């Protein structure tokens, strides 16, 4: 019996990566910064997007694609402030690019400066899925413990910024901003850390400025 060895050496994920690169390149050409917001459930992604949209009303053109397993609750919360499309995964625990692309087509808006993708609340699975974003922002709230970054290395390593949310609760929880930042920097040195609170508004101006600068750097500078 003759056997033949066929050398392939092909990355099994390569097709997905190529498509994500395409999405990213198209958005850059259109002047749109794509931001993928990830976190555990309840860390404050929707609240942050709500406040960002409120602050940017009349100033920046933005839109949100929000992903959940079920319901359109987040889309309903955001709709008064920003163009939004709800993606429901029906059980999948993370978003994948095809779902995002279809939702983006439904959005059908021109001249977007910022496209936010609010991922499913999950600190594990979204780490492995490139949604064509320029910026992956991981949110960690003060109620989740300051030792989490080291426990989720792939997520924190692949992120471009760490938002520490719910800083209004710092007086009531054993959370150290310094410990969380140091832990994150063991995984991803130079990761920008942005503490904020959507309840008292602290840190929101810095967050908005950070996004504007990232758009200048990654999209406007590039095209």
């Amino acid at each position: 019996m003759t056997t033949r060895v066929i050398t392939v050496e092909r990355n099994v994920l390569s097709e997905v990566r190529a498509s994500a690169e395409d999405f990213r390149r198209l958005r850059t050409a259109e002047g749109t910064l794509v931001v993928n917001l990830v976190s555990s459930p309840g860390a404050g992604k929707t609240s942050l997007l709500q406040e960002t949209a409120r602050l940017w009303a009349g100033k920046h053109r933005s839109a949100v694609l929000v992903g959940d397993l079920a319901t359109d609750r987040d889309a309903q919360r955001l709709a008064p402030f920003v163009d939004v499309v709800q993606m429901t995964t029906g059980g999948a625990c993370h978003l994948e690019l095809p779902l995002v692309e279809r939702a983006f087509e439904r959005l059908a808006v021109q001249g977007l400066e910022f496209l936010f993708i609010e991922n499913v609340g999950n600190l594990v699975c979204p780490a492995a899925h490139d949604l064509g974003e320029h910026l992956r922002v991981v949110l960690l709230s003060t109620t989740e413990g300051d030792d989490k970054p080291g426990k989720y290395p792939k997520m924190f390593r692949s992120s471009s910024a760490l938002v520490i949310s719910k800083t209004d609760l710092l007086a009531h929880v054993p959370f150290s901003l310094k410990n969380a930042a140091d832990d994150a920097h063991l995984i991803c040195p130079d990761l920008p850390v942005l503490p904020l609170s959507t309840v008292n508004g602290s840190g929101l101006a810095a967050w908005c400025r950070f996004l504007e600068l990232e758009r200048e750097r990654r999209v406007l500078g590039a095209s």
Partner: protein
Amino acid sequence: MHEYSLVRGLLLQMHEAAAPHQDTIVDEVVVAIGPLSGVEPMLVAIAFENLTLGTPYSTTRLVIEQTPLELSCLTCECAFETLEVALACPSCKSARTRVIQGDEVVLRQLVLRELQPEESAS
């Protein structure tokens, strides 16, 4: 990472690679999995077994190579390898390291066998 969708992608690539070789059966497929790929080898094996049932690949042997994570330290310039997820330089403890290899899943090779006259290629 999701081993079932990964294995579906793997089976498509196997099919493409084997297609030019008429009248052969895939005896073995070798896949390399890196520690930072987010993929669990045991779950890949289970998914492969389940997804190949009733297909021409049901007798294909899956061989998994666990490749090391190769990192280069940007602080002290040493290069190091580890089979685990460890991102800090073992020499100078700096976290300023660059991943050279170890976050991929690679279809390395197929071993094809010519079909005997009594076997069919259905």
